[in-house]
């Protein structure tokens, strides 16, 4: 196993036909870290992963493993493991041979190949299926083979490209725990690409949010959840109510904004002065029904298990998304209040 202290991406850029798919990604990955690259489709997260893997050549920038330059090496000589969205199992090889493939490529002694293959198959609990072909396995089992194939090499870095997106909801949750468990027990440095913010928040030590090929924010899950750096990150992190407002007053403690017949208090993210156009962001769970709030009419009610998701329209026509404990009916008049500690105000 090749060990390293840190992996450094320095201004990694990739252009396709003159257009930047990824521009100037700089990031330091510490040994043992679990990093999630997060963003909507087309944001450049898969490009970043493929550049890191060596499957795409860089247009600019460099990748360093401690003092060794990596971006000039072909993928097979970087010593990374990768799990693909489509699993990409070799359809003509059995589970065992799939897992052993990389070890054979390194020309390891037969006994060691056997020992490590068995170990990896046991790790993902597929002992009974070792002689089957990938086509005979379920989606979740195929995914586990793909993971075993990547980790059996004890790679210095594991790359995962939306590995759970082809699984159904229940299996996705199970595999999430499974991957996290593997990460903790093996201590493998991991870069994980996903478009699912919930998945990223629950699994990663640090998140990198990308949009249009540029880094929007890097931080721990709590940081991104409570303090998104801009309205795009907020939008992506579940701030469904993004309301265009005008700043009435700004103080170091809070700003007051108004617009659409509403007045809200919240925390300013960035420089704001009175009179500025701004965007107020609130999560649906931070809007409640309460006395003396904004009057609105209920339009749609969705049952979501413990709570109800409600869409209501204010008298000025703004749509609000909120949660409610009891079921209002469409057409009901309600009053909506926001928790000032949870309202964020972004400059435009």
């Amino acid at each position, binding site marked *: 196993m090749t060990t390293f202290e840190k992996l450094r991406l320095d201004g990694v850029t990739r*252009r*396709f*036909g003159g257009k930047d798919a990824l521009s100037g990604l700089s990031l330091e990955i510490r040994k043992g870290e679990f990093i999630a690259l997060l963003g909507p489709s087309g944001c450049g997260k898969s490009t970043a992963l493929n550049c890191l893997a060596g499957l795409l*050549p*860089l*247009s600019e920038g460099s990748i360093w493993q401690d003092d060794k330059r990596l971006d*000039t090496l072909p993928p097979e000589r970087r010593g990374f493991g990768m799990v693909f969205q489509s699993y990409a199992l070799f359809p003509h090889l059995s589970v065992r041979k799939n897992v052993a493939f990389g070890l054979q490529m390194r020309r390891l002694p037969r006994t060691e190949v056997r020992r490590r293959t068995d170990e990896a198959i046991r790790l993902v609990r597929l002992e009974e299926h070792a002689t089957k072909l990938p086509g005979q396995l379920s989606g979740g089992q195929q995914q586990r083979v793909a993971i075993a194939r990547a980790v059996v090499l004890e790679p210095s870095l594991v790359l995962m490209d939306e590995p759970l997106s082809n699984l159904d909801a229940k299996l996705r949750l199970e595999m999430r725990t499974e991957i996290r468990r593997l990460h903790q027990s093996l201590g493998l440095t991991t870069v994980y690409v996903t478009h699912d913010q919930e998945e990223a928040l629950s699994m990663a030590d640090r998140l990198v949010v990308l949009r249009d090929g540029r880094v929007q924010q890097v931080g721990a899950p709590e940081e991104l959840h409570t303090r998104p750096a801009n309205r795009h990150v907020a939008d992506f992190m579940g701030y469904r109510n993004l309301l265009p407002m005008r700043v009435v007053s700004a103080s170091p403690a809070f700003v007051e904004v108004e617009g659409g017949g509403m007045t809200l208090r919240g925390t300013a993210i960035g420089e704001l002065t009175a009179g500025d156009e701004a965007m107020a962001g609130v999560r649906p769970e931070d809007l409640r029904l309460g006395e003396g709030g904004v009057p609105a009419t209920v339009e749609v009610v969705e049952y979501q298990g413990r709570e109800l998701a409600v869409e209501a329209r204010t008298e000025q026509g703004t749509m609000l998304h909120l949660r409610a404990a009891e079921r209002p009916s469409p057409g009901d008049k309600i009053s909506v209040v926001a928790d000032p500690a949870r309202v964020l105000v972004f400059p435009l």
Partner: protein
Amino acid sequence: MTALRHRLAERGVDRQLLLLVPGLLCVLTLFVYPFAYGVGLSFQPTHGGVLGAYKDFFTDAYQRDTIGTTLQLSLPAAFLNVAASVPIAYRMRGRFRGKRLLTTLLVVPITLGTVLTAEGLLNFLGPTGWLNRTLMSAGIIDAPVRLTNNYWGVFFSLVITGFPFAFLLILSYLSGIDPTLERAAATLGAGWWPRFHRITLPLLAPGLATTFCLTFVLAFSVFPSAILVGDPAGTTRVISIAAYHAAYESYDYPLASAIAVVMGVVELAVVAAVLGVRSLFYTGSTGGKG
């Protein structure tokens, strides 16, 4: 150096493209170079200046008429093959018992090739062949119908080899059209005729054009059967015979090359015309899988 390689790689140029080299080399040396050589040769006749060979071809009615003869044979044959295939394939596109056997049987004439088909046609359609014998004993005709060593012999040979080809192609194009489209049309109240000509036919049109082109190319290159079952000195003196005679009997290579060039140009003109018509139709997904 690395920068250049990066820039090229961005546009998709890297060492993997070298895999194309052997194939390209073969096509260039065995197809493009000889063809260019032939074109060059056609402009260097023994007499009559640069265009002498072409002048010889177009002023001599015996030579010039081969174009018409070839088109008169190949266009109707290609048209019949495609036109007959559509209703048959339309009826057979579903699954039924024996479909595999039927399609297998249809492959037989394609593999027989023109030479064997010619021999069979001479025997079967000849004056004392089984067909004339059957028709005479049934009292339909009094004297044997002459079906070989003339236009019809060659025409039959083109149908025998060309129809299965067209049929199998059209059948696979039809299978590529999502059958739920017609079912959807049926739920909207369309009968079988509107379903066919407003849904299936427009989706099939590009496939029909391609099939017509390929069948036409096959018929246009008619050569051995035109000699064996046709009337190679008269009504079925097709353009390939003219080219072959020029090259191997009068050893006039410039003329032979000129005829080959004319043949290529006429053929590509027909193909281009058909594909031009095709581009007027919808071309895109036909909703089928693959």
